[in-house]
């Protein structure tokens, strides 16, 4: 209360004997009203105190009304003192009121307490299938090397799947493919009538070369079908195929492009790569590519080590194939490659069993699938 005592009031205290009756009344009133305000324990109580002190019929208001009957000198002194008292009491009410309001809010908040151990409202979080993730990764890596994506139909014909790719009729290489056949198309004749499910994505090589002029630089990804079903084979799986055709593309480019690709895909800068001669009807020379790996302790680790892992088939496009597509093999040459996407995915992400890719088991999808926000992107390195 000391600090509330105004200067003018202090001055008057020098001579307490001269204190007028009015001054004494104010002092008494101050004590009374202060007690009244301080006694209020809730908002209505404070409101009642405000009315009692400052209301139309309040005590300070009442005293104010008596000022009119005073001499100008008395009125000046008493009026000032009363105003000081009015401000002091108003301030006291405000302080008290805001304290009570905060108290009331604290009580309300305490009443509003919730059990924060309860789970929030559920949301479903779907996952992207690993095969799709791999396809998007491959598109990103090859786009960076200037490739575009081409596509073709799953239901193909004998010409695009075999003949144009230099598989001679009856050759054992055709048998290696275990083809699913559909009834002949009555609207077509010969090889175009013989309908089948494509056994490889190499069909898109043919479709692309037949409609585009070099330079050609494409990949194609999609479903392929072979009649084989065991631990390591499913009747449907996915492949990626690549094709680069120009005037001066040679085996050195094949090695460079595929080594760059494997390093980018497995994210190993110094991944060892080895190319071995092999055989495919649609390439000559042909090769298989191995990457370095370690098989210590029964596990498989891509990268360093003293072992090799076969990863893809490739080669220089056979002149017969180029010719079959209406291009001149003396003018154009290039390379092609193909690989199984499930295998690449299994190797990169440590998925042990091919067959589980197609079972749609939600536990598998949630475990091996990818967050839809985690799309492959060369910039983020994901």
């Amino acid at each position, binding site marked *: 209360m000391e600090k509330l005592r105004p200067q003018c009031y202090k001055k008057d205290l020098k001579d307490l004997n001269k204190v007028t009756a009015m001054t004494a009344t104010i002092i008494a009133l101050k004590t009374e009203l202060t007690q009244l305000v301080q006694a209020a324990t809730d908002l209505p109580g404070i409101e009642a105190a405000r009315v009692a002190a400052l209301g139309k019929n309040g005590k300070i208001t009442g005293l104010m009304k008596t000022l009119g009957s005073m001499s100008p000198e008395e009125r000046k002194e008493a009026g000032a003192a009363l105003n000081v008292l009015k401000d002091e009491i108003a301030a006291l009410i405000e302080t008290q009121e805001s304290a009570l309001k905060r108290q009331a809010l604290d009580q309300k908040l305490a009443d509003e307490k919730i059990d924060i151990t309860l789970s929030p*409202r559920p949301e*479903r979080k779907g996952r992207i299938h690993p095969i799709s993730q791999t396809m998007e990764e491959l598109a990103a890596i090859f786009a960076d090397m200037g490739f575009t994506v081409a596509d073709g139909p*799953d239901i193909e014909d004998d010409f695009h799947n075999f003949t144009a790719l230099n598989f001679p009729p009856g050759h054992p290489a055709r*048998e290696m493919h275990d083809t699913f056949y559909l009834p002949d*198309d009555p609207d077509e004749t010969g090889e175009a009538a013989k309908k089948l499910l494509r056994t490889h994505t190499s069909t898109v090589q043919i479709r692309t070369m037949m409609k585009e002029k070099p330079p050609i630089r494409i990949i194609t990804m999609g479903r392929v079908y072979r009649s084989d079903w065991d631990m390591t084979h499913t009747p449907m799986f996915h492949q990626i195929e690549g094709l680069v055709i120009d005037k001066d593309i040679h085996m050195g480019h094949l090695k460079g492009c595929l080594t760059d690709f494997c390093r980018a895909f497995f994210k190993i800068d110094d991944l060892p790569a080895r*190319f071995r001669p092999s055989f495919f009807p649609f390439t000559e020379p042909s090769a298989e590519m191995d990457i370095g790996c370690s098989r210590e302790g029964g596990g498989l680790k891509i990268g360093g080590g003293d072992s090799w892992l076969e990863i893809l088939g490739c080669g220089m496009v056979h002149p017969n194939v180029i010719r079959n597509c209406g291009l001149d093999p003396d003018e154009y040459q290039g390379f092609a490659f193909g690989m199984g996407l499930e295998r690449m995915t299994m190797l990169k992400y440590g998925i042990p069993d091919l067959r589980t890719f197609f079972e749609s088991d*939600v536990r598998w999808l949630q475990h091996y699938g990818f967050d839809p926000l985690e799309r492959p992107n060369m910039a983020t390195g994901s």
Partner: protein
Amino acid sequence: MKFTLNWLKQHLETAAPLDQILISLTALGLEVDGVEDRAKIFAPFFVAHVVSAEKHPDADRLKCLVVDTGAEKLKVVCGAPNARAGMKGIFAPAGSHIPGTGIDLKKGVIRGQESNGMMVSEREMGLSDAHEGIIEIADDVPVGTPFAQIYRLDDPVIEIGLTPDRGDCAGIRGIARDLAATGIGTLKPLDDTAVKGTFKNPVGVNLNTEHCPHFVGRMIKGVKNGPSPQWLQDRLKAIGQKPISVLVDITNYMTFDLCRPLHVLDADKMKGNLNVRTAKKGESFEALNDKTYTLDDGMVVVCDDSGILGLGGVMGGTSTGVSETTTNVYIEAAYFDPLRTARTGRALQISSDARYRFERGIDPQFTAPGMELATKLIIELCGGEPSDVVIAGKAPERNLTIEHAPAYVRQLGGIEIDEAAQEKILTALGFTVRKTGKTWSVSTPSWRSDIEGRPDLVEEIIRVNGYDKIPAVSVPKLSAVTRSAETPILSKSRQARTVLASRGLDESVTWSFMDKGLAEKFGAGDKQNVAALTIANPISSELNFMRPSILPNLIEAAGRNADKGYPDTALCEVGPVFESPKITGYHVCAAGIRSGLYLGRHWSGKESSRVVDAFDAKADALAVLAACGGPTQVQITRDAPSWYHPGRSGVMRLGANVLARFGEIHPAILQDMKIAFPVVGFEVFLDAIPLPKKKAETARPLLTLSPFQPISRDFAFIVDAGLEVDNILRAARGADKNLIDTVSVFDVYQGKGVEAGKKSVAIAVTLQPKDKTLTDPEIEDISKKIIDSVAAKTGGTLRA
């Protein structure tokens, strides 16, 4: 293809160690699949002399030996009953790994007696089950002789994978030739000089099919059949062949050694001359594998007067099979057509070493030399008198000459190899090189039917030189701007799967084929030509039809997940559905289902715990359309196909174009599929979503923001219960297209306070003034227009 190192060295003169040979094989394209180096396994074990054998002082059955290893005399405790002083046996020193028991041997003390190794039994060496005693070695074998040498196990067995083009390497000599070309050794000469016959071959040969153009026959009289000599048995055993009798073993040996399959017949069981012809459908043949085959038209058979003796290039018959008592033998060496052999073998499902070679193409020029080499071997091992050879037909000749430009190696192969080196490689592989200026004329050897043109020669040169020597060159980018790599449909597929996964659906990948009966419940036959999409040779009858819809696969998957305890699933797939086998006869579809509870049971109440409904599917479909850049406003019609609930499904259209369909799956179909919980689904046809007309500008249209407050007014209308709410929205929107910004439904109510057969629909209308603030009378005016428009179009009245 298996062979042993020593067998290879019979054709290849080389000092190269095994490891180098293995590296060269793989580098040549003869990929090493495995090596079994038994000499390594048995390296620690050798012959030792038992100097003394005393009974163990504290064990009745044990003996204390002193063993002389040549270097030292060691104490060894041994339990074998045959262990005795003076004998020689096989000693395993401490530290060695015992292959038969898998134990690493340690020095030890056995019942108080020191033991520094062991004398081993055959079982402990992993050779047999013999464990009656330790191995006994003849006295004349010197101490220290390696065990592997005594048991002839010191020859590593190499297995290579053979690509289908390299028939020439289905014989060990072919492999040796390839290796010699790398400079690792030299190919030894082969003595194929003719053996002079001592009598006239009594069996004539008639060739009556083009599929056997060349046949050489010879009889050898007075042979003695029986078990083969040890070296021959060892070699065959090493590569996994079972020795049978020396005559049969020789034909097998010729098959693997020189890729020259032969057939031997017991001449005394033959009748008349030989006739090679094609079979007639229904003829029967009993093959050497003790199976009887019914033949088809066109299969090549070797016959005599008694009937069919053999299936050309595939397998001989039992009727003339040789036995222990065979004394007169007839040798057949013939060339059978690769395609015909392959076809016959496939049709009858006979895999044989002969078929494997004939179908890849054996050397057609090697028929007569092969006969001479076989004759020499038979005479050497079985004795006998050879006849003249009878030769029918002649060897097919290919005579392929390729123009080779040495510079082409660099152009295609990407590596500079000088002309001398190129010529050396080609010559070593058997090619004949004639230099005629800038280009060479290169003739192919008869055994390389796989060589067809210029790139083949490049492959020969660069593979022998080594693919590893080709410098890798990164592919340069074609332009500074990375082109958009994705096709429009690929972009849409990615957008669809991303938005669906972010909405909570797990992406699946399911078979493109399904059960035809199930497919018929999902539209097979509506647009599809059922017969044309039925797989002729399905892998199982449940996967015999190209799917018309992805939904059945996803519903079945939901069923499987429910069986595993996960009934509340949300699955999607982006992939093809098929309408016809034509190139344009498929669509790329983004489909999805939600089953059971929307989110599963949760304390927070109804919204998450509710059962999935058609609006979930509708929201998914709209989200896909939006993500793929589709139209924001689509027509919704009620004509969804039969696999949807007729009252709770719809089709999203853009004019006549069906973009999507959605709804509850028909309960009868779920019942048929034995699915006991509700399922909603949608199918969006990504290829039906129109593409932006031209390439989108990177700059957006300028955004203008109105400075005037939007005004919202709510209205509740009483309309017929069957009225579709969209009619009210359209009527309201049409009241003032300029000022009305949005119209939305926030309540639909039927029940107390609303007359039966009616419903109350509450809508919120937002007005957006463009150039001035609206006055109250203006707002009143628009409200009236809205009420009038709804009344006129739907008969709705403002709810009191």
